[in-house]
């Protein structure tokens, strides 16, 4: 069974993984049965990372109760397995806690000549910078510290898991510190390294990456080392480096670029638990790049960008071109419909009035249902953050309340010949669907029922 290994570097890596997890939950089709997320971030306490790890754990807990070994279970919700090979999905980076950069490189014990060379490459501010919360937008620091990755035990674990046919995808931002330095370094290690297991397979594996160009700003703060006014200049120099060292030398099979010229200013946090940026359209689109990569084949290096139909302040499904829309529309609408039903009408669906409940004895008091409810809460939070961000991703009408078919922004529900409407129609479809479920086990059947039911509802009421 082939796997897709996804390295998420820095805060952006974690946030794109968050979006990808939501897409996998909704059943967006990826070309692999298993994905293996690996987060690379020295700032292990940053909230973007911890939130993503918590989401991945929740996904895995739900997925562990489901079986898709046969084709009997038609549901696509949570179908792709997220495999954990490292604790907290995170590749351990050593010696960054409570250390300044000069302590890390043992500056004090260097010869005079080496100290002079170091001074040419790193400012005093760089040298005295604490690395507890990452590299604070300094890729020159990151490129030194992250060199340890290839020799780490965790990287060895990754390499041992790698088999022929697996693929690798790397997520990074180009305008920060960790991602900008980590991506070229990691790619070089994967392509040329020879001191880890299966290096011969890994060296020749299909590797894709997404590099996020500036899509947000940070509010100016004299106490922070991160200054978003440098994002563009850092991006330009990094792009020049990528062109000659990544794209032109064919070391990557697919390189996706994403950016937006409309940028929101976030609070300026260098890292730690305060660094929790709201989910963003660009991260969402970054996740679609992974899906695209997993379903594509490449001959030589492909550089890719993404366009939308109209330059609008609020992007909806109608803003996407057909390929993107087809990838996302049905899975996300179905999943959102299910999450709304089990969030806003949960009392009804738990009650014995819901006829299908004869199949789901004790399900509602189980850990599985608790996890599912938590996941829906996180999903709604994610949608809301993207909707309120700039540029807004306004896919769903989150306040549709008792009108489940007024869910999709810009899509008017079709009229159909049926005496039932709204949630009564949803329930009717679910009750019909449960009779068609072929899967075994109440958890499988529960999600398959919602999958088949919402599939028919989307076709009948919300298709174009």
């Amino acid at each position: 069974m082939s796997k897709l290994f996804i390295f998420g570097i820095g805060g952006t890596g974690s946030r794109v993984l968050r979006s990808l997890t939501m897409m996998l939950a909704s059943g967006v089709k990826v070309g692999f049965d298993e994905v293996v997320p690996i987060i690379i971030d020295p700032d292990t306490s940053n909230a973007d990372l911890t939130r993503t790890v918590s989401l991945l754990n929740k996904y895995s807990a739900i997925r562990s109760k489901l079986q898709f070994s046969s084709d009997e279970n038609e549901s696509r919700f949570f179908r792709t397995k997220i495999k954990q090979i490292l604790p907290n999905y995170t590749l351990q980076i050593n010696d960054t806690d409570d250390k300044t950069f000069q302590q890390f490189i043992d500056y004090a014990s260097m010869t005079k000549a080496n100290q002079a060379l170091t001074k040419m490459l790193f400012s005093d501010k760089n040298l005295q910078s604490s690395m507890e919360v990452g590299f604070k937008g300094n890729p020159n620091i990151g490129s030194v510290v992250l060199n340890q990755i290839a020799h780490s035990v965790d990287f060895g674990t990754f390499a041992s898991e790698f088999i022929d046919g697996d693929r690798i995808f790397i997520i990074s931002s180009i305008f920060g510190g960790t991602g900008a330095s980590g991506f070229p370094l990691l790619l070089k290690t994967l392509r040329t390294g020879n001191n880890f297991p299966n290096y011969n397979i890994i060296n020749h594996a299909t590797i894709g990456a997404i590099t996020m160009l500036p899509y947000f700003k940070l509010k100016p703060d004299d106490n922070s080392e991160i200054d978003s006014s440098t994002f563009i200049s850092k991006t330009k120099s990094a792009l020049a480096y990528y062109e000659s060292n990544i794209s032109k030398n064919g070391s990557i099979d697919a390189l996706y670029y994403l950016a937006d010229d409309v940028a929101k200013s976030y609070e300026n946090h260098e890292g730690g638990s305060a660094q929790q940026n709201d989910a963003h359209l660009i991260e969402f689109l970054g996740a679609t790049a992974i899906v695209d990569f997993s379903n594509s084949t490449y001959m030589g290096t492909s550089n890719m960008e993404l366009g939308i139909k109209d330059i609008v302040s609020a992007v909806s499904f109608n803003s996407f071109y057909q390929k993107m829309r087809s990838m996302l529309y049905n899975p996300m609408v179905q999943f959102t419909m299910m999450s709304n039903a089990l969030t806003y009408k949960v009392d009804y669906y738990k009650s014995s009035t819901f006829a299908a409940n004869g199949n789901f004895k004790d399900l509602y008091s189980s850990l599985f249902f608790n996890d599912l409810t938590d996941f829906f809460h996180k999903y709604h939070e994610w949608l809301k953050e993207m909707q309120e961000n700039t540029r807004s991703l306004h896919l769903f009408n989150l306040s549709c309340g008792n009108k489940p078919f007024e869910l999709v922004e810009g899509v008017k529900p079709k009229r159909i010949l049926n005496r039932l409407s709204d949630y009564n129609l949803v329930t009717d479809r679910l009750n019909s669907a449960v009779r068609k479920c072929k899967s075994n086990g109440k958890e499988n059947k529960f999600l398959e029922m919602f999958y088949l039911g919402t599939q028919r509802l989307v076709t009948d009421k919300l298709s174009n």
Partner: protein
Amino acid sequence: MGNFFGSIYCWFEDFFGLELADYMWGVSSPLSPNNSFIGIGLAMLGISLAMVLVYYYIINHPRLNNWWGWLIFLGINALVNFVVGWQWVLKDYYENKMVTNDPSTNMQIPLNIGESEILCFGVSNMILSIFAFVIFSFIFKWWSTNCSRAPF
């Protein structure tokens, strides 16, 4: 069939009276020599079956999949059958069919059946229709998409 329905209705003959029971059997009145239980019984069963099918397959509403939703239809069925049973017999009463021949005078004299006995027959028909509704419910509920768990 006449015996079948007659014996069922006669569970209540103490309630609606022996004279009316005899009349319904068709043994006391020369103007009504046939077993009337067959017609009323078939009507009662037909109406109850129709109500069950309407509830489980025509209305089949997700919100009615509970004991009170089922009870509403049971109540409607009972009411309809009460009226049908009552009016069915009352019609004979007003048409003066409830008579018998007096052997001494060879004249037709009215049977000792009043409107209250006929009302009691309507109630008996209603009670039987409730049984029928319950039985039909447990036969047909399983294939209903939205109401298969009613009454429980």
